């Protein structure tokens, strides 16, 4: 069968018809010649020929591909019938578009953040080097940091492991939040990464030497933005980092380095720029990461590593650069958990949408009973009917998917402006885009949606018997029992899923509120912080401490100052550390080791900040450098390691071999930037035992408004050393406002997202309940009419109708509560001060859901009471 015949089958049919016609005429002519009467001759010719239509059909079938032909018929029929039922079509398509769109959008974020490979040659072979102490033991600690020049040279010599080792460094002034303006990369870095500039050239080897390094590569976006894509840019100069650079090239638009960062420009790294650079290495071809680590363990003693700890054997670990969790991206485990949870949530939203559309299709299938009966009476097989209905749901799903893609396209452009800072940085690098993977995902989701929403209704609709369908029992018997059961099942599913999402949203909202209500843990009124940094030329060590001590004594003389102290940090700088606390005694050692940070403070730190002392003592003159090491810990840590017992006198250390430290006091926990993470320890050590730590944070408590004092202090600092820079001069209220805003941004974003999903789920479920009930009331009109005629009151009728809702709602809620108890555990890492099983949240969400369900069933039940018995019965 040729395709040309397929596409011209109508032409061929006409052609054969003419031919057959001519055949019959020829035969008739002959019959007449034999002496028959014309009419008799014609009939004889027809008899001789056989069934003309049958022959034409046979030839037509030869010209077609049966499957495509009937699929085309189904499609055309579906389009016609959907055009006739615009309301039904619009409801189904919008529902599915929301469900699929939410999935596609979240998946495109997941795709961007987790699946897209880094834009380097063979990125899986690029690693960065970390050192692990006490590998495999409970006290394992991983150290990530820069490498000394000697360490880098040692690694470069390991040709059996690496194909190349190249350094880079970030400019020292870069804060965490600001976009990085410029990154220094070694001359060989681009070769190591396997990336070429889109314009111009990379760095020459001699440009990696001090004095020759005034050249720069521009990022594509910076070139477009600042230079209007000037093709003659090469050779021009640009001022970056207070120096003048000659532009030698422009990088491709997807280039990023370090991974996750798109600075404006790159300049050559030289030994003068940074003597402790980060390094990227490419594993030798054919060597797996594990093999490479084994090889490296063999030579690790010969590698000069400046960060060795005396108390444990240290071995190198190669962390793949493309592993987003270990990269410089700052895409942490929490963000990944959150994204996966959001993916799950939108999956539920889609399931609810599918259940809704399945309900719609079920009701519609019941309405089409007569048509189905006629079609099967004239020979349509069951499979053919099922396929017809599946085609209908496929058309709905496809239309939903197309709408969803438009929605996603718009959202991926709008989203980056709505994101909290950490995700915005992530997606500034991994641009959200409708990649091939996203399209493939959409196709898979669409097919699943079609099957999930269409399969059961299709079988159900195709099932109706010929006789029953033709007699049209629908009106008297109400909804068929099997259909009703399916409706109930689907409604229960919707209610259950909606409850899970509501519980998730409720927990996140609850946790968010607790987050914002958490106070600092000490008295921040009239308390302020001044941080001063001294120029690089200022001598290190004791001279610096002397400067700060002098500043402190000056500040103490100011009239409005009640007290002032120096500390090596502040509560707002606590909580970023990763060092872990290991207890000595059996009880404490049994607890999971928490990580956290420590702060070196003076004796009067707690009294000045008014951090309540819970037990024991603060530091005193007895804590000299030579006396036993002591520490004060916060209450939460004490309760975690030594529940129900006093922590005083207990000892802990930072790892096996590290010196033991004795707990002498317990203070209230304070709010730190990582306060939402439940496993943070707060350790205070006396600055006298700090081994030269400089107390450079000036904390001042004033009698009244601290702002005039701050101005005064600034002036005194300028007097004391004109080269000193005031980094911070703010009240703690201001510091906490900033910190809270940053800490809350991400939880707020997820809370809002989850609430939107839960809202959509709830609305969809309510629409589902409303739709099914309206349909069932319409089907039972005559039954209700009879009941009313026999004396049922409006209340009876309302109860009758609403009872139909209670069964699925209750079943769904029970299932939903059970599933919630199980599923919300996944939220644990995103929750603050609330257990995932918080009974109040679950009960109130269930109650809320019940109220919404009853509200959704109110209108149909009221409509039922308005039925006029006379006209309802007259229809029969």
């Amino acid at each position, binding site marked *: *069968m*040729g395709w040309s*015949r397929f596409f011209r089958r109508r032409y*061929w049919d006409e*052609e*054969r018809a*003419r*031919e*057959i016609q*001519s*055949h019959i*005429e*020829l*035969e008739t*002519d002959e019959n007449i010649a034999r002496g028959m009467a014309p009419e008799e001759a014609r009939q004889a010719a027809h008899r*001789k*020929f*056989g*069934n*003309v239509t*049958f*022959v034409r059909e*046979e*030839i037509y079938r*030869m010209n077609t591909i049966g499957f495509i032909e009937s699929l085309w018929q189904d499609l055309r029929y579906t389009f016609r019938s959907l055009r006739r039922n615009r309301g039904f079509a619009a409801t189904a398509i919008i529902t599915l578009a929301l469900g699929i769109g939410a999935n596609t959008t979240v998946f495109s974020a997941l795709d961007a953040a987790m699946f897209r490979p880094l834009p380097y040659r063979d990125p899986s072979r690029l690693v960065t080097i970390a050192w692990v102490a006490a590998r495999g033991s409970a006290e394992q600690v991983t150290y990530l940091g820069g490498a000394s020049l000697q360490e880098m040279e040692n690694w470069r010599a390991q040709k059996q492991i690496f194909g190349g080792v190249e350094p880079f460094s970030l400019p020292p002034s870069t804060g965490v939040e600001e976009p990085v303006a410029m990154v220094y990369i070694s001359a060989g870095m681009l070769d190591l990464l396997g990336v070429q500039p889109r314009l111009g050239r990379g760095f020459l080897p001699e440009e990696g030497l001090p004095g020759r390094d005034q050249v720069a590569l521009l990022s594509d976006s910076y070139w477009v933005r600042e230079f209007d894509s000037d093709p003659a840019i090469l050779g021009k100069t640009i001022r970056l980092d207070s120096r003048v650079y000659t532009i030698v090239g422009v990088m491709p638009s997807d280039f990023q380095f370090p991974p996750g960062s798109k600075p404006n420009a790159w300049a050559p790294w030289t030994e003068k720029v940074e003597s402790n650079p980060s390094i990227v290495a490419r594993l030798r071809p054919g060597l797996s990461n594990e093999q490479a680590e084994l090889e490296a363990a063999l030579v690790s003693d010969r590698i000069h590593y400046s960060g060795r700890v005396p108390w444990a054997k240290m071995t190198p670990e190669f962390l793949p650069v493309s592993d987003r969790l270990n990269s410089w991206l700052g895409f942490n485990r929490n963000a990944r958990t959150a994204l996966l949870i959001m993916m799950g949530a939108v999956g539920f939203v889609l399931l609810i949408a599918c259940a809704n559309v399945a309900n719609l299709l079920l009701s519609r299938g019941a309405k089409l009973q007569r048509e189905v009966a006629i079609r099967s009476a004239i020979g349509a097989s069951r499979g053919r009917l099922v396929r017809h209905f599946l085609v209908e749901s496929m058309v709905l799903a496809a239309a939903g998917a197309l709408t969803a893609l438009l929605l996603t396209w718009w959202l991926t452009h709008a989203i980056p402006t709505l994101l909290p800072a950490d995700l915005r940085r992530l997606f500034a690098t991994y641009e959200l885009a409708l990649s091939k993977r996203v399209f493939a995902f959409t196709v898979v989701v669409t097919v699943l949606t079609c099957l999930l929403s269409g399969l059961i209704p299709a079988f159900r609709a195709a099932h109706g018997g010929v006789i029953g369908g033709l007699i049209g029992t629908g009106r008297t018997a109400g909804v068929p029992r099997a259909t009703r059961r399916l409706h109930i099942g689907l409604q229960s599913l919707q209610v259950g899923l909606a409850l899970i999402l509501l519980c998730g949203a409720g927990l996140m909202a609850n946790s968010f509120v607790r987050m914002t209500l958490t106070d600092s843990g000490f008295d921040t009124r009239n308390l302020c912080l001044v941080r001063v940094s001294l120029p690089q030329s200022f001598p290190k060590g004791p001279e610096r401490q002397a400067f700060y001590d002098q500043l402190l004594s000056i500040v103490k003389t100011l009239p409005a100052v009640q007290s002032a102290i120096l500390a090596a940090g502040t509560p707002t700088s606590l909580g970023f550390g990763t060092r872990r606390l290991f207890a000595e005694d059996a009880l404490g050692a049994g607890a999971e080791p928490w990580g956290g940070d420590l702060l070196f403070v003076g004796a009067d730190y707690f009294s000045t900040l008014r951090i309540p002392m819970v037990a024991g003592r603060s530091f005193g003159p007895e804590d000299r450098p030579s006396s036993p090491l002591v520490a004060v810990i916060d209450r939460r840590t004490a309760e975690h390691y030594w529940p129900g017992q006093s922590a005083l006198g207990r000892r802990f250390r930072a790892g096996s071999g590290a010196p033991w430290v004795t707990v002498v006091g317990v203070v209230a926990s304070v709010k730190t930037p990582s306060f939402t993470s439940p496993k943070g320890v707060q350790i205070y050590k006396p600055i006298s035992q700090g081994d030269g730590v400089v107390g450079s944070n000036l904390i001042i408590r004033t009698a009244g408004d601290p702002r005039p004092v701050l101005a005064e202090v600034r002036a005194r600092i300028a007097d004391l050393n004109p080269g000193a820079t005031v980094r911070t001069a703010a009240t703690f209220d201001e510091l906490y406002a900033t910190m809270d805003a940053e800490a809350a941004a991400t939880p707020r974003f997820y809370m809002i997202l989850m609430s939107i999903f839960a809202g959509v789920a709830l609305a969809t479920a309510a629409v589902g309940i409303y739709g099914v009930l309206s349909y069932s009331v319409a089907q039972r009109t005559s039954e209700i009419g009879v009941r009313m005629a026999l004396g049922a009151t409006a209340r009876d009728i309302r109860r009758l109708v609403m009872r139909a809702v209670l069964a699925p709602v209750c079943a769904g809620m029970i299932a939903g509560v059970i599933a919630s108890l199980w599923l919300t555990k996944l939220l644990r890492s995103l929750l603050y001060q609330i257990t995932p099983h918080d009974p109040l949240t679950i009960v109130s969400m269930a109650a809320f859901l019940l109220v919404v369900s009853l509200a959704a069933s109110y209108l149909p039940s009221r409509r039922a009471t308005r039925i006029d018995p006379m006209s309802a019965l007259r229809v029969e």
Partner: protein
Amino acid sequence: MLQGTLDLLVLQTLVMGPAHGHTIAHAIEHRSENVLQVEHGSLYPALHRLEDRRWIASFWGTSENNRKARYYRLTPAGRKQLTEQIGRWDQLVRAISRIIRPATE
């Protein structure tokens, strides 16, 4: 009629020269001395199939009694096909005769 033999008969009929469907049907009947009765309608799907395989080609012409009719003629591929089919047919007939009259010598 035996499955597939209609194709063979149609091709053989066209060896004499181009003919239209009506002629072909009658030719088969006459030359088999009315043993093979063709329902004329069943001829057309066969003609369609043969033309689809490019063993025959068709054109509109005028019949002997001045009616428009579609004529078929054998293509070179059809001629080759015919030789092959006749060979296969002869083989089949010989094989069947050997089975049903095993001891004629």
